[in-house]
């Protein structure tokens, strides 16, 4: 069971949340210029690391707001929670969060 600290509501059970997949995937800046392969990559290919992964979550049964989370997919340790639109914390920053 994940205990997720919503940036707006505080710690809640994972059952209150909806998962949104990889964070920081930007819509193509110039969509017209993309090849089929590049479109396929944008639509279908996401990072799938065994380790730290920046991902989107929505507090679906709470404030309904989206935010980002850095989580280790092998250990399920939550390394950082941060508002959408902010850059992903660096390893050093998450290190300080864990400490």
């Amino acid at each position: 069971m994940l205990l997720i600290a919503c940036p707006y509501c505080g710690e809640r059970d994972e059952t209150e949340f909806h998962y949104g997949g990889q964070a920081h995937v930007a819509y193509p800046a110039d969509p017209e210029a993309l090849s089929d392969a590049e479109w396929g990559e944008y639509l279908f290919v996401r990072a799938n690391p065994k380790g730290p992964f920046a991902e989107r979550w929505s507090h679906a049964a709470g404030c309904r707001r989206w935010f980002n989370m850095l989580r280790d997919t092998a250990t399920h340790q939550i390394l950082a929670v941060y508002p959408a639109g902010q850059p992903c914390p660096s390893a050093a920053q998450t290190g300080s969060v864990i400490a």
Partner: protein
Amino acid sequence: MPEHLPEHPDWLWRTPNPKRSYDVVIVGAGGHGLATAYYLARNHGVTNVAVLERGWLAGGNMARNTTIIRSNYLCEESAALYEHALKLWEGMPEELDYDFLFSQRGVLNLAHTLQDVREGTRRVNANRLGGVDAEWLDPDQVREFCPIVNTSPDVRHPVLGATLQRRAGIAKHDHVAWALARKADAYGVDLIQGCEVTGFLRDGDGDRVVGVQTSRGPIAAGTVALAAAGHTSVLAGMVGLRLPLQSHPLQALVSELLEPVHPTVVMSNHVHVYVSQAHKGELVMGAGVDAYNGYGQRGSFPMIEHQMAAALELFPIFARAHVLRTWGGIVDVTPDASPIIGPTPIGNLHLNCGWGTGGFKATPASGWVYAHSIATGAPHPLAEPFALERFTTGALIDEHGAAAVAH
């Protein structure tokens, strides 16, 4: 049901040291890797083959699935592939000379809503057109076929009917792996356990692989064939290959041993649980994947709670059954819930992944078509639609929800 599990000999395969070089190195000694090695030897005469396994043989998803075999998929490409598998399953105990308790006790897919009924009847018709046996049962027929299902109209999710595939069923998964391993070994295939792939050997230009780096030294290979299920992304990442895969934990659980009470496999997409009874007597249950990515080989407690609630609604008779143990495997899910089989943009590197929640049932066909692709350099006709290119061309085989199970 058979009274006893089959006896097996003390030694089913050799434990060789890896040679310096093989024609084909298969990464992953699960069901699909072992079936690929077996059919490479049997169908194509390719026997200079090693199957490398990081842990122990068939100790990954092959040891963690719910052993259900069926071919009632909606899309014709999928139905053809899984039906090929089912036909192979029907001949395998004799061919492999090993009783792995393949039991064609049928699979019911329950319908609880009008939309479920429409989806189910459509799938029955699609299956019949594709040469796959399928029937539609009304609630009375469901009760007749599986008397322990609660078909009362007075429950929250009443049973409005079900699809039935009579040729579907279960098999003893460990014994399937051992049977394939024994035959592959007899053909001369080296099954090497405790041998982790840590990198790939590349040629000068770097656009071809020429072998693998392992925890037991470098091994040269004419072809490297991945069959690593949930960990395919990790391996592909070592050669800079990004794939349309997301890895999720999928849990299963078993009850204590019970008298034989459950005559078939029952799946319910809507309340979401699937239940069968193993030969020894455990109720074997599963449900969907955890929504978020994970490699931890354990799932979350809410998924267990969810499937237990669903199981109790469908089977009030199980209210006092105790859970014996739960576990999780890591499944590799593609955006269209269909596998990826065939070559990669990197020379000599082949891919067999993305089976998601349904790889076990495909085991023989997966090995059959993958061996064909590796041995001949051209895709098997059944595997051709499942090439990696479909994520560029857009020719997806979208089985989400249509494959009689929610992914």
